[in-house]
C-alpha cells in the first residue's frame, strides 16, 4: 500500500496546489514542497528499513508489492513493485522534485498554480514509471509523463519554447507508439504460446521468441527508451528542450526524463529480450561511445551556457548506455551510479546556470566573465559541480564512470579506451565553461546579487548528496545489487539469466 501512497502523495499535492486560491502563491509552493518532502521521507524510510522488514517472502528482489485487478478482460493488472533500483530512482525523483520546486521560487512568478500542478503530476507519473511492473500500466505512466512536461516547456519556457515543446513531444510520443506496438506484439505472442494473455512483467519475461521477431520487438522498446535517454543519433530533441525549458523543467528533463529512458532499458528492454539484446549489444555500446564523444565535442562548441550543459548530458548518458549493455553487474551498477550522480550534478548546473542567466539576462558565455568576484557563492557552487561532472574522484560521477569503464574493459578494451578519452574532454569543457563564466575580466561590468538563501540551501543540499555518493557509494551499491544481478543481461550465452 505504501507504493500507492508514493504515487498518491504528489497527486493529492497537485490537487491541493490546483485549488489553492488565486493570489496565494505561497500556499501553493508550500504544498508542493511539503508533498515532495513527505514522499522523500517515505522513500528514505523504505531505504533504511529495507534489509530487515520489507523483504517479501519469495518475492524475488521486490521489497514491496501492490497488485490489484484493473482491466481483467485483457489481463491487465494494477501491479506495482519496488526493488532496489526503483527505490534509489524514486529517492532521486523526490529529491529533485524538491529542488525543482525550491528553484522555481524566484523563477516562476506567473501562473504559479498550474506550474506546480504540472510539477507534481510529472513527479507522480515518473514514480509510477519506476514502480509499474505491468506493461500496460507502465505505458500509461510513461505517456502521462509527457503531457505535464509539454506544458512545463511550452508555457514557462524561453523564447523558442513552442518549437522545443513540439519537437520533444513528437519525438517521444512517436517512439512511444512504437513501444506500444512491440508491447502488444509481445502480449499476443506470449498469449498464443501459453494461452495466458497477460501484461505482467514477470510472466512475459520468459517468452520464447524467434530471433527475428525478438529483434523487432526489442527495437520497438529500444528506440522508445533511447530517445528518452537521448543517445546519438536520437538525441536531436534534447538540446532544444533542455535549453528552452524553465529551470525546473531542465532539472526534470536532465534529472528524471533521461533516467526514465535508462531505467526502461535496464528493466524492460534487456531482460524481456535477452537474446536480441545480446545480439544488439555491440550496436548499443557503439551508440554509447558515439554519444560520449559526440556530446563532449558539441558541448565544447557551444556558446550558450545552458546548451553546453545540455550537451554534456548526452555525453554522460552515453556512459549509462554503455554500462547497460556491457553485460556485467559492475558496469550495470556503474550505470545506475552515473544516473544518480548525473541527475544531481547536471540538475545543479541547470539551477546555477538558470540563476545566472536570470540575473544577467543572457545565456551567452561570451558576455560573461569575472563573476567570481561578483558572486563568490554562485561561482563556488558552479566550480564544485563542474568538477563533479568532469568526474573528479570524491564525487558520485567518478564512481559511476569508473565502474562502467571497469565493466566495459573486461568485455572490450578498445571501447573502454575510447570511452576513457571522454574523461579528458569532460575536463576540458567543464573547466572551459567555468573559466569563461567566472574568471577573466568582468568586461561587461556585471554586479549581481549572490545566491539567495533558498538557492544557497538548494546548493548545500545538492553538494552534500553528490559528495555523499562519491564517498560512500556503498549505500547505493548495496541496495541495488540484488536487483541488478537479476536484471543483468547475459551477453555471453544469450540465454535469459533469470531462467
Amino acid at each position: 500500500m505504501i507504493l500507492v501512497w508514493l504515487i498518491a502523495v504528489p497527486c493529492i499535492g497537485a490537487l491541493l496546489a490546483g485549488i489553492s486560491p488565486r493570489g496565494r502563491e505561497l500556499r501553493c509552493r508550500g504544498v508542493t514542497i511539503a508533498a515532495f518532502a513527505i514522499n522523500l521521507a517515505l522513500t528514505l524510510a523504505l531505504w533504511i528499513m529495507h534489509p530487515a522488514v520489507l523483504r517479501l517472502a519469495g518475492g524475488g528482489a521486490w521489497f514491496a508489492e501492490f497488485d490489484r485487478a484493473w482491466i481483467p478482460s485483457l489481463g491487465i493488472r494494477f501491479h506495482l513493485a519496488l526493488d532496489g533500483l526503483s527505490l534509489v530512482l524514486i529517492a532521486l525523483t523526490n529529491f529533485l522534485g524538491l529542488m525543482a520546486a525550491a528553484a522555481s521560487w524566484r523563477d516562476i512568478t506567473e501562473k504559479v498554480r498550474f506550474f506546480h500542478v504540472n510539477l507534481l503530476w510529472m513527479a507522480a507519473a515518473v514514480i509510477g514509471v519506476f514502480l509499474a511492473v505491468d506493461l500496460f500500466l507502465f505505458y500509461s505512466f510513461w505517456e502521462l509523463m509527457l503531457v505535464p512536461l509539454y506544458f512545463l516547456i511550452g508555457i514557462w519556457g524561453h523564447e523558442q519554447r513552442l518549437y522545443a515543446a513540439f519537437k520533444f513531444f513528437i519525438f517521444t510520443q512517436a517512439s512511444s507508439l512504437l513501444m506500444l506496438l512491440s508491447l502488444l506484439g509481445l502480449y499476443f505472442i506470449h498469449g498464443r504460446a501459453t494461452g495466458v494473455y497477460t501484461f505482467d512483467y514477470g510472466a512475459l519475461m520468459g517468452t520464447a521468441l524467434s530471433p527475428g521477431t525478438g529483434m523487432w520487438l526489442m527495437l520497438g522498446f529500444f528506440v522508445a527508451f533511447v530517445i528518452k535517454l537521448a543517445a546519438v543519433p536520437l538525441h536531436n530533441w534534447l538540446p532544444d528542450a533542455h535549453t528552452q525549458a524553465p529551470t525546473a523543467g531542465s532539472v526534470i528533463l536532465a534529472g528524471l526524463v533521461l533516467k526514465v529512458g535508462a531505467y526502461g532499458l535496464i528493466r524492460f528492454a534487456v531482460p524481456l529480450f535477452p537474446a536480441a539484446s545480446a545480439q544488439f549489444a555491440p550496436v548499443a555500446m557503439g551508440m554509447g561511445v558515439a554519444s560520449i564523444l559526440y556530446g563532449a565535442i558539441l558541448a565544447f562548441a557551444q556558446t550558450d551556457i545552458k546548451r553546453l550543459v545540455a550537451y554534456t548530458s548526452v555525453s554522460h548518458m552515453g556512459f549509462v548506455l554503455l554500462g547497460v549493455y556491457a553485460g556485467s553487474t559492475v558496469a550495470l551498477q556503474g550505470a545506475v551510479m552515473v544516473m544518480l550522480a548525473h541527475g544531481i550534478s547536471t540538475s545543479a548546473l541547470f539551477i546555477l546556470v538558470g540563476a545566472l542567466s536570470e540575473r544577467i539576462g543572457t545565456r551567452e558565455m561570451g558576455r560573461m566573465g569575472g563573476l567570481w568576484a561578483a558572486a563568490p557563492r554562485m561561482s563556488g557552487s558552479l566550480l564544485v559541480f563542474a568538477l563533479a561532472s568532469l568526474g573528479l574522484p570524491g564525487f558520485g560521477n567518478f564512481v559511476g564512470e569508473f565502474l562502467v569503464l571497469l565493466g566495459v574493459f573486461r568485455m572490450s578494451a578498445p571501447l573502454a579506451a575510447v570511452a576513457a578519452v571522454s574523461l579528458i574532454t569532460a575536463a576540458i569543457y567543464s573547466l572551459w565553461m567555468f573559466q569563461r563564466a567566472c574568471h577573466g575580466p568582468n568586461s561587461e561590468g556585471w554586479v549581481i546579487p549572490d545566491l539567495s538563501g533558498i538557492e544557497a540551501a538548494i546548493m548545500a543540499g545538492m553538494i552534500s548528496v553528490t559528495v555523499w555518493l562519491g564517498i560512500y557509494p556503498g549505500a547505493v551499491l548495496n541496495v541495488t545489487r540484488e536487483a541488478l544481478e537479476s536484471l543483468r543481461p547475459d551477453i555471453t550465452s544469450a540465454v535469459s539469466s533469470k531462467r
Partner: protein
Amino acid sequence: MVRGDFFILLPLIITGGAAVAVMLLISFRRSHLATATVTLVALGAAVISVICVAAAAPRQASALLILDSYALFYMGLIFAAGCAVTMIAYDYFERQTDHREEFYLLLLLATLGSAVLVSSNHFASLFLGLEILSVSLYALIAFHRERLPSVEAGVRYLILAAASSAFLLFGMALIYLERGDMTFFRSTQIASGVPAWSPLLLAGTALLIVGIGFKLALVPFHMWTPDIYEGAPPPATAFIASVSKGAAFVLLLRYVTLFGLHSGSVQSAAIAAIAVASMFFGNLLALREEKVRRVLAYSSIAHMGYLLVAILAAGPLAAVAAGYYLVAYFTSIIGSFGIISVREGREGGGDAVSDYRGYAWRHPWLGGAFTAMLLSLAGIPITAGFVGKFYLLAAGLESSLRLLVVVLVASSAIGLFYYLRIIITLYGPPEAERQGAAITPAVSLAGGVALTALTFLLIWFGAYPAPLLRLIQAMVGG
C-alpha cells in the same frame, strides 16, 4: 405485431412520441426551457427504457427491426449522446433570440432515425431510418437561416446526403435483385448452388459501401465535411460528428459481420484501402487548417478510418474494440463541440485556433475539460480515447493486420501535431483586449452539467475501464 413487440419498441415509441409532443408544444406555446426540458426528459426516458427492455432482447419486431443486445447498446449510447447534445444546445440557444424551439424537434427526429438505423434488419428500415436522420439533419445544419455559412452547409449536406442515399438505394436494389430478399440476414447468406459473388452482388455491395462511405465521410467521400462542420451550429455539429456517423458505422459493422468479410477478398482490400486513405489524409489535411472546427472535421475523418480497422479485424476483440472506441469518441467529440459551442455563444468571434489563445486562463475548468477532450482524441492515457485506441490496436494485431496497425500508429503520430497546437494555444498568453471578456459566466447550468459529466466519464472510462468493458462485452461481444 403483438404486445411484446410494442414493449421492445418502447425506446423508439418514446422518442417518436416525444417528437410529436414537442411539435404540439411548440404550436401551443413557445418556451425554450419547456421544449428543452421535454426533450431531455424524453431522451432520458428512452435511455431508461432501453435498460428496461434489455431483458426481453433479442427479439425480432416484424421483419424490419431486430432489437438484440447489440442494437440496444448502441441505442442507449445514441440516446445518451442525444441528452448531452440537448443540454449543450440549450446553453447555446439560450443566447439566441428567434425560432430556437424547433431545434429540439429536429434533434428528436434525428435521434429517432439513428436509433432505427442501428436496429434495422431490413433494407426498408435501413432506408427509413437513414432518411429520417438525413432530412432532419438538413434542417439542423441550416438552422441559422440568417447566416450564410449555415445555409451553405445545409445545401452542401443536402446534395451530399441525397446523392449518397441514391447510391445506397441502387446498391440495395441490386443486392435484392440477386438475392430475392431484403432482410440483412438472408441477403447476406450464400444459398447453395449460387456463386458466392456475382458481378451484380459485387456492384451492389460496392454502391452500398460508397453510400455509407459518404455518411461516414471517409476518404475519398469526404469533400465537404469541413465546410459542413464549420457552417452548422455547434450543437448540430456535435450531433453529426457523433450520433449520425456512429449510427452509420454501427450499421456497417453489423452488415459486414453478417457477411463474414474474408481477408484477401476484394471487399476487404477495398475497405482497407479506404481505411488507410482516411487515416492518412484525414490527419494530413487537418494539419493545414487554421480553424478549430475544420481541424476537428478532418480529425473525425481519421477517426472513422481507425474504426474501419475494427471492421476489418473481425476477431473476438474487434466488436468490443469498436464499441469502446465509439463510446470514447462520442464522449470526446461531443465534449469538444460542446466547449466550442459554449465559447462561441459567449465570446463570439471567429473559430480560428488563435481565437482560443489564453482560453484556459480565462476559464480554467472549461480549458481543462477541452484539454482532456483533445488528449482523448489524440489517445493519451487515462482518457477513454487511449483505451479505445489500445483496443483497436490489439484487435488489429490479433487478426495480424500489420500494415493497418502500423498506419494507424503512424497517422496518430501525425495527428498529435494539430491536437497539441490547439492545446498549447489554450494556454498561450491571452491577448490584451480579451482580458475583460472573462466577466461573463463561463457556462450555464445545463452546459456545465453536460460538460462536467462528459469530462468525468472521459477520465473514468480511461482510468477504470473494466465496468464499461464488461458491459460492452456482454452487449456486443457475444
